[in-house]
């Protein structure tokens, strides 16, 4: 199966912390990487281009949440660091990539290989910076003794000592021109200058009253800017590190991130929900950009210039606001907002449009254009998206309708649902299974033990309870109990023609039963090595699409049960939902979504 596109998750954010965000510099030699920016989303790093909804690539090489990302100055490499102190260096595109190729070709390249992997720190990595020749890398963060490490990129050998901080180091910047300088800022309010290489302490400045959150050099290396929680922005001479003056940016909240748009134009992002553009020549704020939304969610935790006129700002709720200065002329302060999930995607629906729901309770509509619509529907994880019109069912005991007009209605439901299913049309009823009961919403409830999964049609309701699979009539009269399996039943699905039932369990085995006489058709579908998370029939009842926590997706054939198509490693940390596409040729594409928060679309290869 071949990848068509990946819809990536949004950046991971933390309150009062600069989010990990970096861009290939606009002056980089190769045009193919300009306009790319990278950010961390839980354990993966996402590389995107401007406002397109599909990502260029994702990097899944980290075993722990990623906390720092940095592009090399030529844009060919990205360094990413995680909360365990591991730093990986990789290329966001094929290494010998011909510059003549168009951007579109990059999108088909999803596999990203790690080039170098080093364990540099004993704690979280907060900041990374490449030198102008891309041969040296400094990583800073927390750790009991070593909070920073300067190494050669291709060998990992140490090139000096970064010292002078008494607590966690928040950010590092290396001077983009010769002679080499490195500046680190920390939680202790210190700004420390180093000369190199080999790097050694020169002097430190205690100008900020509180933690310093970010430090950046101007692209020509002339100036250096630090900003912190005390709302101060300090300007230093890039070469000597002498303090020049405090810039009057006048933010009303703490400043978490700074970025240079050009040699003279500085962007500062603050929790007061604005990004300010400051002109270093005129010494004044040229423009203030505000983001949509209110409250804590709209606090800006990261800003990054992407090209000479474009920049992105990330808010605490994970939205990316893309600003283009060329719109300044007609005074439009409008940003294009890129939305998506911030956590694992737990449910997918393709009718009438692609909808996805995640464990943070939000539902995102991916219409065919580059516009996403995100709504926080549930207080807890969403367990199912069912029917057409689509209902979302969550752990917060709520069933909400996702209408065409996209307003959300709710009705109370007495039990905490584990999974839900809809029988045929809306009138046939919605069935919900919880740990202790299976319920036809609004009419009847039957007690079961350890309810785990459910499926319903207008003839049968099938419930997985512990190791047993129970078949009910639509009025919840028990009809049959299948023999107990060796592991807990984790997914059940009745074929659209009501003839067959596929039952998957926590050991990865799937059994196909005939519903007329409850006999076994086949138990040959045993290719998953871990819990089967979802089973979906195609409309002709001839193929089933399955996914599991083993990160794999399989398509099995009913006609020849031994035949299958496999897709290994579809999502890091497991696939949680799959769907056949809803196009004219129903088996043309499949969608998959997983614990990494990515939604992927694949060209189907039928077995």
């Amino acid at each position, binding site marked *: 199966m071949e990848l068509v596109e990946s819809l990536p998750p949004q950046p991971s954010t933390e309150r009062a912390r600069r989010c990990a965000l970096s861009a290939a510099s606009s002056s980089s030699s190769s045009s193919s990487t300009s306009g790319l920016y990278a950010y961390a989303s839980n354990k993966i790093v996402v590389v995107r281009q401007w406002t397109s909804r599909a990502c260029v690539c994702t990097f899944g090489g980290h075993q722990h949440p990623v906390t720092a990302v940095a592009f090399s100055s030529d844009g060919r490499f990205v360094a990413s660091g995680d909360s365990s102190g591991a730093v990986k260096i990789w290329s966001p595109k094929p290494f010998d990539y011909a510059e003549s190729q168009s951007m579109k070709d990059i999108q088909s390249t999803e596999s990203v290989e790690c080039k170098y992997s080093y364990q540099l720190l004993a704690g979280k990595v907060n900041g990374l910076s490449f030198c102008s020749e891309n041969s040296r890398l400094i990583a800073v963060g927390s750790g009991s003794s070593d909070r920073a490490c300067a190494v050669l990129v291709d060998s990992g050998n140490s090139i000096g000592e970064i010292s002078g901080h008494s607590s966690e180091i928040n950010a590092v910047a290396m001077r983009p021109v010769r002679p080499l300088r490195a500046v680190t800022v920390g939680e202790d309010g210190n700004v420390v200058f180093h000369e190199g290489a080999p790097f050694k302490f020169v002097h430190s400045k205690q100008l900020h009253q509180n933690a310093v959150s970010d430090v950046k050099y101007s692209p020509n290396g002339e100036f250096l800017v630090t900003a912190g929680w005390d709302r101060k922005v300090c300007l230093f001479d890039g070469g000597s590190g002498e303090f020049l003056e405090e810039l009057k940016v006048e933010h009303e909240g703490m400043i978490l991130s700074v970025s240079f748009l050009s040699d003279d134009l500085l962007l500062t992002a603050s929790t007061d929900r604005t990004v300010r553009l400051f002109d270093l020549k005129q010494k004044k704020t040229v423009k203030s950009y505000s983001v949509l939304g209110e409250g804590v969610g709209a606090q800006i935790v990261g800003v990054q210039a992407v090209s000479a006129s474009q920049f992105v700002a990330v808010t605490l709720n994970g939205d990316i606001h893309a600003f283009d200065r060329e719109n300044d002329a007609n005074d439009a302060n409008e940003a294009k907002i890129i939305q998506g999930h911030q956590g694992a995607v737990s449910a997918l629906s393709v009718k009438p449009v692609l909808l996805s729901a995640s464990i943070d309770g939000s539902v995102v509509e991916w219409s065919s254009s580059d516009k996403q619509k995100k709504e926080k529907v549930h207080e807890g994880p969403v367990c199912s998206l069912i029917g057409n019109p689509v209902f979302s069912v969550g752990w917060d005991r709520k069933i909400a309708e996702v209408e065409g007009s996209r307003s959300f209605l709710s009705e109370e439901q007495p039990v905490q649902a584990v999974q839900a299913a809809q029988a045929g049309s809306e009138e046939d009823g919605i069935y919900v299974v919880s740990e202790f009961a299976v319920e036809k919403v609004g009419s009847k409830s039957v007690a079961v033990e350890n309810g785990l999964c459910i499926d319903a049609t207008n003839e049968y309701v099938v419930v997985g309870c512990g190791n047993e699979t129970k078949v009910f009539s639509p009025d919840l009269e028990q009809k049959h109990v299948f023999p107990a399996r*060796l592991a807990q039943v984790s997914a059940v699905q009745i074929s659209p023609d009501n003839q067959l039932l596929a039952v998957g369990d926590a050991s990865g*085995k799937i059994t196909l039963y005939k519903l007329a006489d409850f006999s*076994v058709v*086949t*138990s*040959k*579908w*045993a*290719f998953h*090595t871990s819990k089967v998370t979802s089973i979906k029939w195609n409309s002709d009842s001839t193929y089933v699409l399955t996914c599991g926590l083993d990160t794999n997706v399989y398509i099995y054939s009913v006609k*020849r049960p*031994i*035949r299958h198509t496999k897709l290994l490693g579809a999502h890091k940390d497991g696939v949680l939902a799959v769907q056949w596409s809803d196009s004219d040729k129903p088996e043309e594409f499949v969608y998959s979504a997983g614990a990494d928060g990515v939604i992927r679309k694949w060209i189907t290869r039928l077995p």
Partner: protein
Amino acid sequence: MSSGIGVHDDSLKAFNELKLGGGKKDSANYVIYRINDDKTEIIVEKKGRAADYDEFVELLPENECRYACYDFDYELAGGAGKRAKLIFYTWAPDTTPIRHKMVYASSRDALRRALNGVAVDIQGADYSEVDYDTVLSKVTLGKS
């Protein structure tokens, strides 16, 4: 420990035919063995020619144990030519009663030691363990 179950002469003959058949178009490329109903001997259940590997795997019953031999054809990576290897299968699905599995496990050596020239041994408890790709990676030691 051996169960004391013996091997019928026909079982060895069938194996030798398979081994010496030399991949002729009409010669057998698989033999499936089972233990007879009296549990005294290992006999040939079926032998013949399967058109492809999946056809052979489909002959293994879903809920019963078996032994099998298959003449496994494969293409070397990088166009380095074709190879064939004799593979011995011990088929014991998870769903079989434990008593049956014990009899098959303790009688396996009697048959296996009598067969010379087997290149690879495969233990299968479900169909994913006897899948073409799984067997191929074992045969080629993970190189393909």
